[in-house]
């Protein structure tokens, strides 16, 4: 469906992206994950035809976009990171205009507008000027504007930036609906939890290069541990974390104040031994929990840096 092959883009001496390749199939949601400045927006801009790559190619249903007016562009709907709406016009006027850009007219426009407004839950606000909308409503209308011509591929460039949790949830529900309808979504974000919730596959990009491209499960396999046990201790007197590392199944140990985080491959085999060892050594505990490592940990493992610190 969408295939990106070794695309490269430089601005002067600065390399924005370098040999980025990945693909997204029909109905697949691919997350393009990376910190700010990693090259996500440049990649999306090249796919949308806003920028020409220095090398490499973008194929949409095995076709390259050859010109500004190439009909292949009809397959794509772009949701820019910045709000792309006319504040002084009503929601319906905005959508009428964007529909016309894709040569929709007459009854098709009305149907498309009604359907997209209904999808994003703004039917009752169709006649209101956009300037009167909340940030979350504008984001939803921004999404609707990209759906009018019923594109197969939807490019979403950080579509939830600056919205409240409720609106973010509403946008996720919209996207899940689209996913169910078989749309191919390319979702760029630097929020791990968004990628984890929505994406079938995640492409991690850093410094303009793809450093991982796999399903969530596949990415977890890159990690040295599959489970983390968090143990909150009553006291840490005399505790030597290095000794815990010698216990069977234990792969990593980290002590933060009175919380001990222990990475293990097999939870059922590793956890009892650790708890017994703590009791035997006089370090009583009052709470134990376990979790799988998140994408943040994956990014940390792959780059050596925390995603939000970069």
């Amino acid at each position, binding site marked *: 469906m969408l295939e990106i092959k070794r695309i490269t883009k430089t601005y002067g001496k600065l390399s924005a992206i370098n040999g980025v390749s990945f693909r997204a199939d029909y109905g697949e949601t691919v997350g393009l994950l990376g910190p700010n400045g990693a090259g996500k927006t440049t990649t999306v801009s090249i796919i949308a035809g806003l920028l020409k790559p220095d090398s490499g190619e973008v194929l949409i249903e095995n076709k390259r976009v050859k010109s500004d007016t190439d009909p292949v562009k009809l397959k794509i709907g772009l949701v820019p990171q910045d709000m792309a709406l006319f504040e002084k016009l009503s929601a319906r006027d905005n959508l009428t*205009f964007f529909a016309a*850009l894709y040569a929709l007219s007459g009854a098709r426009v009305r149907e498309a507008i009604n359907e997209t407004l209904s999808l994003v839950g703004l039917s009752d606000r169709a006649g209101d000027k956009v300037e009167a909308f909340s940030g979350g409503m504008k984001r939803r209308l921004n999404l609707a504007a990209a759906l009018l011509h019923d594109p197969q591929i939807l490019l979403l460039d950080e579509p939830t930036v600056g919205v409240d949790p409720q609106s973010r949830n509403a946008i996720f529900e919209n996207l899940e609906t689209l996913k169910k309808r078989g749309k191919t979504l390319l979702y760029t974000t630097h929020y791990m939890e968004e990628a984890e919730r929505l994406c079938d596959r995640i492409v991690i990009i850093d410094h303009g290069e793809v450093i991982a491209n796999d399903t969530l499960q596949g990415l977890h396999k890159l990690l040295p541990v599959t489970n983390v046990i968090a143990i909150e201790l009553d006291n840490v007197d005399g505790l030597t974390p290095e000794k815990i590392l010698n216990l069977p199944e234990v792969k990593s140990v980290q002590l933060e104040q009175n919380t001990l985080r222990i990475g293990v491959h097999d939870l059922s085999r590793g956890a009892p031994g650790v708890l017994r060892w703590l009791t035997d050594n006089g370090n009583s505990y009052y709470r134990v929990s376990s979790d799988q490592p998140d994408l943040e940990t994956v990014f940390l493992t792959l780059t050596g840096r925390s995603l939000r610190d970069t």
Partner: protein
Amino acid sequence: MMIQFLALVRKDLKLFFTDRRAVVVGLLVPILCGSFFGYLFGGQKGTTETSKVPVLVIDQDESDISRALITQLSSDKNLDVKPSTLDAARDVVRKGKATAAVIIPKDFGRDAGQAFFRRARKPELDLFYDPSHALELAMVKGILSGAVMQTVSKEMFTGKSGRKLVSESLAQLDEIDMAPQDRTALRDLLNGVKKWNEQREISETLAQGEFSGGLTLPYETREQAITSGRNVEYNGYAHSFGGMGVQFILFMGLDVGIALLMLRQSGLWQRLRAAPLSRTMLLGSRAVSAALIAGFILLVLFGFARIVFGVHIQGSFLGFLGVCAAFSLMTAAFGLLIAALGETVEATRGYSIMATIIMVMLGGAWVPTFFFPMWLQKFTVIIPTRWAIDGLDGMTWRGLGFSSALAPIGVLLLFTILFGALAIVRFRWKAEG
């Protein structure tokens, strides 16, 4: 293609007309400025009164001649003459409340009379003037010369002091150092004047009927404004509304350019570029919508000028529409050029305002180009606004035919092509931000 093009144009028009306050201000300001400048530059002839030049007169002579001179000056329709004193006059002129003050010195009448027929010391008329009114000073001096000549000559030929002076001059004639033949001629002249005066005393009525005004200019001018027709008066509002229309439409073009620069930094630009639209369509639609708005503003301005100030399209209406359309297109292309050459919004706004003001100024929008020095009048033909204003003048108050509109239309369209081509070549298509 057409659906997309029309949608782009319609959107621009909708955005323009949605902001009603901006529309009202955008029309009101040029109307106010046009009305003001039109009034200053003559307004509707016949309905406005030309302001008189304020002049003070200090009469230190208090002779028949000085009193007659003041009466003569006061009767001039271009002057507002008031008596004053030396100190007060100096103060009033310094404050700019009077353009000039004429000081008639003591013995002016006697000395002027003597200097009229023979080589005697000429009396001096002091003139205080406001240096910021140099043009008016020239007019005052001209009127003063005529009035002095008429008053003194009248007194010499018909007045009592004139008769006395003629007799005195005849008595002193032999003492004057001059060639014998000149002396003889002057004696004959003075005797002739004396004889004339004696005869006039016998027949007062004859003298009044045939020679009562002294020496005057031997001609009178008959002024006729050459406008579109014999009975059509010049209407200053026609020029001022054309000039102000051109100015504010250029500013509108500047806004179009700045808005395009800002658009390029927004998500909207990404969305437009992601759609299957050609670059020509994106810029072309912008140019067409800007030209339509410019045309609308021009038509509203001239509509207002017609209703309120009686400005008529005395020449070719088609030519008028052609000049309006060509100038509107030129403005739109100018806006695109600003967007193409601009780096940042702030810097672009600064230099494009400067460029606009220069074009407006040199085009004759503020002051008609005939006030310019000749070299500047020749130079300004390279300024597109000059052609627009000349074209509008030609089609309005000058009442010229369509053929006279062809040159302005042609030149404006050439500028449109030049600006448009430069804009397309230099436009940075990459989204910014």
